C-alpha cells in the first residue's frame, strides 16, 4: 500500500515544529520515520501533515553532563550502537541499540521516535527503565522531565501530552563497577522482542546491590520487575539465588499472547531471560 495524501513540513527548529504542531493538531512529528511511515503505508495511520524534525541537528548528540549521559532525541540507534562514550559508560545502551531492527533501520530510526511510538515490543523501553532514564519533553513554553517509569503508560501510549515533543533522554551515569545487559528473544519475522530483558546490578563482596530489571514485549507496556529485583537484592550472587529470583519474573502483569508466544510460554521466557540477564550482570 501507499500512504494517504499528506502534507510535509520541514521544521527549522524545535519551536517551529511545536508551533506548526499546535496549528495542526492532526499532524504527526516525523523523526526517523521508521515507526510512522510503515504505519502510514498500511494506512493504519493517516495524519494530515508530517512535521519532519530531521533538520534539528541540535537534537542529535550523545554527551556526558552533570553526572548524566544525555542523548538527543534525534540520535539514531546506529549512532548509539557505535558511541564510544556509551560503550564505556553505559554499555546497556550500545547493546540494546545493536539489536534494534536491522542495519538500515538503525541508520534512520531515532531513540526519540522509537520511545514516542511506545511499541510494546520495542527494545528501548526496557533499557530506559533499567537505567532509570528520564525523558525530557517540551511544548515550547514548558520543559519537563519524566522518569521512564512514568513515561511508558501502556499499549502504544506515553505520558507525552498533545503539543509536546521529546528533546532528550537523560541517564544517570552508572556507578563504577555496575554491570548491565540487554537480552532479547526475537520474534523471528518482525525481529521485535517477544521478551526483552534489561538488567543492571552491582555486586559488592559477592552481594547483589542496585539491581534493576525491566522487561519489554512481555506485557501491554514495558515494566520494571520489582519482584525479581527484591528477590535478588542483597543476596549473594549464586546461581541458585539468581534462578529463584528469576522465577518470580512477570508474575503480576497481564501477559501478551500471539501465535509465537502465548501467555504461559511468554512468562516462561521472561523467567529464562531474567535468569540470563541476572547471570550476566551478577556473575
Amino acid at each position: 500500500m501507499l500512504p494517504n495524501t499528506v502534507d510535509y513540513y520541514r521544521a527549522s527548529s524545535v519551536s517551529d515544529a511545536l508551533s506548526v504542531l499546535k496549528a495542526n493538531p492532526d499532524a504527526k512529528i516525523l523523526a526517523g520515520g521508521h515507526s510512522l511511515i510503515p504505519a502510514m503505508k498500511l494506512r493504519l495511520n493517516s495524519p494530515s501533515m508530517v512535521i519532519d524534525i530531521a533538520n534539528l541537528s541540535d537534537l542529535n548528540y550523545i554527551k556526558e553532563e552533570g553526572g548524566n549521559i544525555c542523548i538527543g532525541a534525534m540520535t539514531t540507534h546506529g549512532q548509539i550502537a557505535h558511541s564510544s562514550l556509551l560503550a564505556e559508560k553505559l554499555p546497556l545502551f550500545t547493546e540494546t541499540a545493536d539489536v534494534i531492527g536491522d542495519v538500515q533501520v538503525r541508520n534512520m530510526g531515532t531513540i526519540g521516535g522509537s520511545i514516542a511510538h511506545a511499541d510494546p515490543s520495542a527494545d528501548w523501553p526496557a533499557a530506559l527503565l533499567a537505567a532509570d532514564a528520564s525523558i525530557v519533553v517540551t511544548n515550547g513554553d514548558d520543559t519537563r522531565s519524566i522518569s521512564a517509569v512514568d513515561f511508558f503508560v501502556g499499549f502504544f501510549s506515553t505520558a507525552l501530552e498533545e503539543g509536546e515533543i521529546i528533546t532528550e533522554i537523560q541517564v544517570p551515569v552508572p556507578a563504577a563497577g555496575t554491570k548491565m545487559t540487554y537480552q532479547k528473544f526475537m520474534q523471528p519475522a518482525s525481529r521485535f522482542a517477544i521478551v526483552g530483558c534489561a538488567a543492571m546490578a552491582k555486586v559488592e563482596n559477592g552481594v547483589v546491590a542496585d539491581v534493576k530489571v525491566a522487561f519489554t514485549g512481555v506485557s501491554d507496556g514495558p515494566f520494571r520487575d520489582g519482584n525479581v529485583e527484591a528477590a535478588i537484592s542483597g543476596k549473594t550472587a549464586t546461581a541458585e539465588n539468581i534462578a529463584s529470583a528469576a522465577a518470580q519474573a512477570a508474575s503480576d502483569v497481564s501477559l501478551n499472547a500471539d501465535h509465537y508466544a502465548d501467555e504461559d510460554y511468554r512468562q516462561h521466557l521472561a523467567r529464562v531471560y531474567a535468569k540470563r540477564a541476572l547471570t550476566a550482570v551478577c556473575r
Partner: protein
Amino acid sequence: MSNKYIGQSVKRVEDKRFITGQGRYTDDIVLPRMVHAYILRSPYAHARIKSIDTSEALAMKGVVTIYTGKDFENINGVPCGWQVNFKDGTTMREPKHPLLVLDKVKHAGDGVAMVVAETKEIAADAAEAINVKYEVLKAVTNPKEALAPGAPLVHDEYPDNVAFDWQIGNDKAEVDAAMASAHHITKLDFTNNRVVPNAMEPRSYIGDYDTAYDRYTLYTSTQNPHLIRLLMCAFVLGIPEHKVRVVGPDVGGGFGSKIYHYTEEALVTWAAKQLRRPIKWTSDRSEAFLTDAHGRDHVSTAEMGFDKDGHIVGLRIKTYANLGAYLSTFASAVPTYLHGTLLQGVYTTPKIHLDMTCVFTHTTAVDAYRGAGRPEATYLLERLMDVSAHEMGIDPAELRFKNFIPPFDGVNQPGYQTQVALQYDSGNYKAVLERGLEMLGYADFKEKQAEARKNGKLLGVGFSTYIEACGIAPSAVVGALGARAGLFESAQVRVQPTGKVSVYTGSHSHGQGHETSFAQVVADKLGIPLADVEIIHGDSDSVAFGMGTYGSRSLAVGGSAIVKSIEKVLEKGAKIAAHKLECSADDLDFADGKWTVKGTDKSIGFGDVALTAYVPHVYPANLEPGLDFSSFYDPANFTYPFGCHIAVVEVDAETGKVTIKRFVAVDDVGNVINPMIVEGQIHGGLAQGIGQALLEGVIYDENGQLTTGTFMDYAMPRADDLPMFETDRKTTPCPHNPLGVKGAGEAGAIGSTPAVVNAVMNATWHLGVSDLEMPLTPQRVWRAMNHK
C-alpha cells in the same frame, strides 16, 4: 564434441544486468499513456455481496473507471489445467474462479472491484471510497473441519466441500493384509503446514492493446508465458491466440507461484482493450499473501508396517488436502499425481495405498510450491522412517540401508517399477547415504552427542533419503492422467550467417541461469565460444512455443529440445561441409567447431558452413538454404533425482529454540552442466525446506483471516537463521535424455524438511517428545519437551 564448458562452473552471463541494477522486471516497464489498477479485495473469508457503490470513487479526480463482478458475469473464470476424477470416475468439481466476484466472496482477498486511475496512489485512494455492503458468513479453513456435517459451504452447489476423492497404489485389501501381517507398525498423524512461496518480486502485469493491429500484449511475471497465453485466450477471454503476445521479462523468483494463470493477468489484458490504454497492476506484498497460490497443507494419518527384520511390508495413508477456495491451475495434480506417485520413496515397500480427499475451504488457493507434492510424500516417508527406527531400536541409517532399492542404471539393469505407477529411471540410493554419513562423521557425531547430552545440551541428527520426479513429463502419460496440455518443450536453434547462434527456448528463467547453462550446452555441441551463443526466452512472439519452467524440467526437457535442434543443425551442416570439401557427409567428423574429412587435415569451420548456408553459391543441389531448426522434445519418462540430507541441530533446553549446527546434502541430479548453478539451486531449496520445518506456516483465525499476512508475522529464513551448507554430489545419469540430466531445482526443498524435524526429534526423544508439528517454533518445541 568436446566439453569445454559442460561440467564447468561458468560464471553467469545474465548477472551483469542484475548486479548493476539493469534487470528489467515487469514493474520496471513503463508504457506511454499507462494507467494503474488497484484491486479492492474482500476483507472477509466468506460473505455475500449485498451491494457495491462506486459513485464516490468514480467521481475522484484521476479515476478512469471501476470494474466490478457485473462486468465479468458473462466472462469465464480462470481454469484448472488438470482434470482429476473421483474414485468412481465422475469428474472433479470445478467451481468458476471469476475475474471479479459477483455475489459471494470465498476467501479473504477475493477480488471485488478493480479501480483504474492515472496513478497507483489515486487508484488506492479511490478503492477506499468504494462502499461494499457484505453479509458476513461463517468460514472454514481446515480441510477436516470443512468435511464435517453442517460446515459452511465454500460453493453452495457442492454440499460437502469435496473437490474430489482419489486413490493410488495396490488394492486396499492387499495393503490391509500386508499391514495385518506386520511385526511392527508405526502410525503417525501429520500436518504438512501451509506455506507462502513469497518470491521476492511481487506479481506484476501490464496489459496493452494495439488498435491498429487488433493485438494484445501482456507483460507478466510468469514462469511460462505461452501457457498463460493459451489459458487466457482459450479458456478465459476467448480471444484468438495469434492476436496475443505474452512476455515474461526478468522474473524475480517463482518457486511455483508464478506458474498459474491469475485473474489479474486476464483483467489487465481485457481492460487494456476497453480503455485503449496500457494498464499496470503490481501486487503489494500483503496482497501477495492473500492471492499468490499457497503450498502444501495436507493433513494425514500414515502407517508403515515392518517385518521382524526391519523390512517394510506395507504403507497405508489417509490424507486430506486443502485446495483452498478455487482450483488453481495445477491444484488438482499436486496432491495426486505429483504426490501419491512418489510414495514408494527409495524403498522396496511391496504394498502401498493412499486414500486422498481434496477439499475446498475459505482460504487462498493451494497449488504447486517448490517440490509440489513430492515434499509432502517425502515428509511422510522420512518421518516414518526415523520414528520407526527409534521405536524398533534400529539405527535410522541402518533401517534405510535395509530397505533401499538396489542400484540400477536403467541401461544394464531395467528401471524400477514402483507400486504407485511410476517407473524410476536410474538410481543408487545407498551411495548418497554412504557419502552423507562419511561427510557427517556419523561415528564421531554419536560420541559428540553423548558428550553434549551430559552437559545438558540437546544435540540431534536427522536423516532424509528422498527421491523425486522431475522433467515433467511425457505428454501421453500426463494426458492419460488428466493434464489438459502436453508437457513437451520446444527449441529453435538459429545459426546466423556469421556463425553466431540464437537459441529460442520455451523454458523460462526466473533465477535458474538458463542464459548460461543452456549456452554451455550449445557452445560445446557446436564447438563455438560461449559468447557466440545467445539464449532467448520469455516472449511468445520470438519463441515459437513453450511449456515453461517448473518441476525442475528446464534442462531435462528444454535442454533436450535444444540438443535435438543442434543435431539437425549438425546434420545439415555436414551436408554443406561435404559439398564444400567434395566428399560424402559420412566421411566427416565434427569436432572443435569444424568438420574434418576422416584421416586427413582437410576441414571446414562451423562459421564457414553457416555463411555458406546463407550465401549458397557453392551449395548442394536439393538442399534448402539457411541453418535454422526447431524441435519439440517430449520426454520418454520423468527423471528421478534423489539424495541424502542430514541435519544436525541443537535445541535450547530452556526456550525450545532450534539452531541448525550443520547441514549435509548429497544429491544425485544426474549429469551436471554447471556445478555452480546446481549447487546454488540446492542451497536455495534447502533454505526453503528448512524454512518450512522451523519458521514458515500460515495461520488463519476462526474467521478465516490470515494472521500471518506480512513479513512481520510470517517468518522466512534470514541469513542468520542458516549455516553454511555442506554439499556434495553423486552422478547417476538419466538414461533416457540426451544430456543425462535429471533436474536440481526442487531437491533441496524436498529432502531437507524431514531431516530437520527428525533431528529435533532425535535431540529430544529422551525427554519423551514423540511428535512435533511444523513449523517447529520454540514455543511448540518447549511445550513438547515439557509435556504442556
